[in-house]
């Protein structure tokens, strides 16, 4: 019983942290994008205002049970990955559910939510939702390949499927994995572009084209939950990358510095890029990123 309470507290605290940081990053993204495009842009806390507004709005319609459950599905992915990914080194302050082999579990739990939300989006009957979903799934089949290659390379090289073990190795040797397995890092970094869905890979939401894709027909409380889930998940993903490749973090300030510098990559890459078509996006991930993934596996097998 004591453990359950501890885990629940850990979940709540890390949720609040991830929510705050994630939303701030989204706001900073808007600000930075605006400054690069020579606009003034909204203040960095604009996304807080948006979320609070959505949360306090009254929702009057839904299109059925699946749509109603969709945001809950996506929340499962966000919170579960937050629970499995260690936030600080040696599980400091944030107790969680990690175990040997959480890498594979994470791969699958990361698609649980999007698929559940896709079902919800499907029930709205809006054609844009379904088109967005098919694009999203196609793109996922694309970027999962280099991503899995990178993870398999790490698994071979360090003979473990546990995130905590990989972090401990970095702490013990004092060398970040992005230097000791550079190809895996490259493959994972390029796969991250697809995960964050910023341009040129923003084919799912596709502003001006699909009218926000799977999100359309969702408003008020539904959009509120989705947006929170999105920002929590963004933070979880960034933390995972920091844990795997950048030696984890000993305290929250280092964590924020590392995650934000990592976050700059998909953001800045996106600002200067136009949008790919779906098949171009899919093929992109099967090109250079997968080649790096293959090199990573070879590197891990023979060195």
């Amino acid at each position: 019983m004591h453990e359950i309470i501890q885990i629940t507290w850990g979940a709540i605290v890390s949720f609040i942290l991830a929510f705050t940081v994630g939303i701030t990053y989204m706001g900073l993204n808007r600000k930075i994008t605006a400054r690069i495009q020579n606009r003034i842009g909204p203040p960095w806390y604009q996304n807080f205002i948006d979320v609070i507004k959505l949360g306090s709005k009254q929702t009057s319609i839904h299109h059925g049970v699946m749509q109603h459950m969709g945001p809950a599905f996506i929340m499962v992915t966000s919170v579960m990955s937050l629970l499995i990914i260690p936030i600080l080194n040696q599980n400091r302050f944030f107790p969680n559910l990690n175990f040997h082999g959480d890498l594979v579990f994470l791969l699958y739990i990361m698609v649980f939510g999007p698929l559940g939300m896709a079902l919800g989006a499907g029930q709205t009957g809006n054609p844009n939702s379904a088109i967005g979903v098919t694009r999203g799934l196609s793109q996922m089949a694309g970027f999962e390949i280099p991503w899995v290659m990178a993870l398999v390379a790490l698994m071979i090289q360090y003979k473990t499927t546990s995130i905590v073990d990989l972090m401990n190795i970095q702490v013990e040797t004092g060398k970040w994995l992005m230097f000791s397995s550079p190809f895996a890092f490259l493959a994972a970094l390029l796969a991250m572009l697809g995960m964050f869905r910023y341009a040129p890979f923003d084919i799912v939401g596709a502003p001006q084209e699909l009218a926000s894709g799977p999100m359309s027909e969702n408003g008020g409380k539904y959009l509120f939950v989705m947006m929170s889930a999105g920002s929590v998940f963004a933070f979880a993903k960034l933390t995972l990358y920091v844990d795997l490749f950048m030696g984890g973090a000993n305290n929250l300030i280092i964590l924020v510095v590392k995650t934000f510098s990592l976050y700059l990559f998909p953001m800045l890459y996106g600002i200067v890029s136009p949008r790919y078509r779906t098949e171009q996006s899919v093929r992109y991930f099967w090109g250079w990123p997968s080649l790096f993934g293959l090199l990573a596996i070879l590197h891990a097998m023979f060195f």
Partner: protein
Amino acid sequence: MIYILFSILLGGAILTFLANKISGLLRDTFFLLTMLGATLIFYTQLHIGGLVNFSIGSFNLEWGVNSFSWYFSLIVLGLGTLAAFYALSYMKGKENLGFFYFSFLISILSMLGIVMSHDLISFFIFWEMMTWSSYFMVIYSGKNVQKNGINYILFSAFGAYAMLTAIALVYANIHSLSIVEMISNYGQFSPALQTWIPILFLMAFSVKAAMMPLHVWAPGAYSDSPMAYTSVFSGALSKMGIYGMILIFVTMISHLPDDTWFREVFAWLGAITAIMGTLWAIAQDDARKLLAYSSVAQLGYIITGVAIGTDLAMLSALFLAALHALFKGTLFMAVGAVERQTGTVKFSEVTGLIRKMPWTFIASLLAIIALAGIPPLGGFVGKWMLYESLINSNHYILVIAIFFASTSAFLYCYKFLFGFFLGQEEKEWAHVKEAPALMVVPMLLMAGFLVILGTFPGILLKPADTAMQTLGFAPTEGHLWSMSVLFNAWGDQVLLRPLVYAIAGIFLFFLIILTVKGWKNTRYVTTKDISSSGEVPLEHENLTFSVNFYQPFLRAVGPVMKHRMITWYREFGAGMETIFDFTRRIYTGNGQTYAIYVMVFLVIILLLQNTIFG
């Protein structure tokens, strides 16, 4: 007891067939009683290790049950019984029902016969019975007999000849047809025979397991059979191929000095089957075809597991085999339910059934989650064990291939659910009602079992483990759980179950928040009440997106899908026809031409008489 089991099934089949002439009720009763009786006897009276033997002529036939065959009988009888209930309702009002039920029971009988045979003669006879009874099902509808029926029977015949050759080779060498003796004498065969006998057997089994490049019959045959039988066809009958493969791999291939390349080739064939099956499944508009290709792909995973052959790989193959029977059985039944209620199985024709057929939707949803291998359902456990075994046995590129197939599987999974159940609700389908309880309950039972397996996989893993010990794998009693990281100490004292509970807890928590907040104000509106491009669609406008669903993805993988096995076979067939055509020009069927041949022959003889007769 085995006699009684077989006579019940055979007698029941004949009685059912005859009762059809008298009354429908009598026929249904006989059918159900036979199925239930057989299942009951199997579970209560049959003992593992029991043997019966008798002689016909000079051949000694031997039947028996061991833990390995028991595991497969579990799949056959479990799925068979549920499918039988389903069939009663699904087949109501169709023609030739006596014929259908007869073939159904005979194919159940032959599958049980295959796993219980201890000699090659009865194995072969039951194998052929299985082929023929399923062939009757493929041509039952009377559509595409020329195409799909011929395809199926041709490939099956090819497999059967390969098996017969192998059996003849074995008999010529050891003068015995007992499977046990074949295995024990295997070491004394000449090296050439040692390679050829397993290859011939594996050819026969690959045909039934629909492995590339022998899978060509599968999509047509699966989709042409009545859905009540297809669930057995894809769920259980294809597993007979797996049963044979496991036997061959464990008892023969592992004794070969150079078994590694053998295993690699088969593992890769399995992976390619999985990838290509998945890609083709994505391209289908017909739900039956989609599931058929998906079956081919899923069998690919199992073949890979069998071919790798480590303890964990074999365990995952056995687990996935039972799991595939469960979820594919459910899905084919769901398609049958949709087909019966709406009259079509095309995704582009029927949409928005979720509110009309909610139970079918729930069953399909659970089956799809298991198929995709997403936690917390049983599929995840099977997939996990497969990945882990591949990584532990240093098959890294194979892991990527399998992972690609299973990620791409999400695409057709979503297509299946979206195509039938989601999208805009149309007036055309407003009359559709949920399928009868007799069809829905078997689906829900199997789907429920999949949920339970996600948290308690031991229910199936224990019998699978016992089955493996029969095959000579090391006993893992007591430490079955230490084979995979999934089951042993999960790092920080966490087990699989807490994770499942966590998932359920988080889901419920947010669902309650969503529901409670603004409970009174939120109301349901139809799917026509949406805004698309700033306009609200009219009542008759259907905006559902279902044609060319994954076109961009298919464009991206286009180069891979350009080559099809079927074209190769067609060209091979055309080439053969040219040869036959040439022969036909010699044998014209015209008496005068033959007279000329005789004359020419005589002239040649006369001219060369000195040389020939000296």
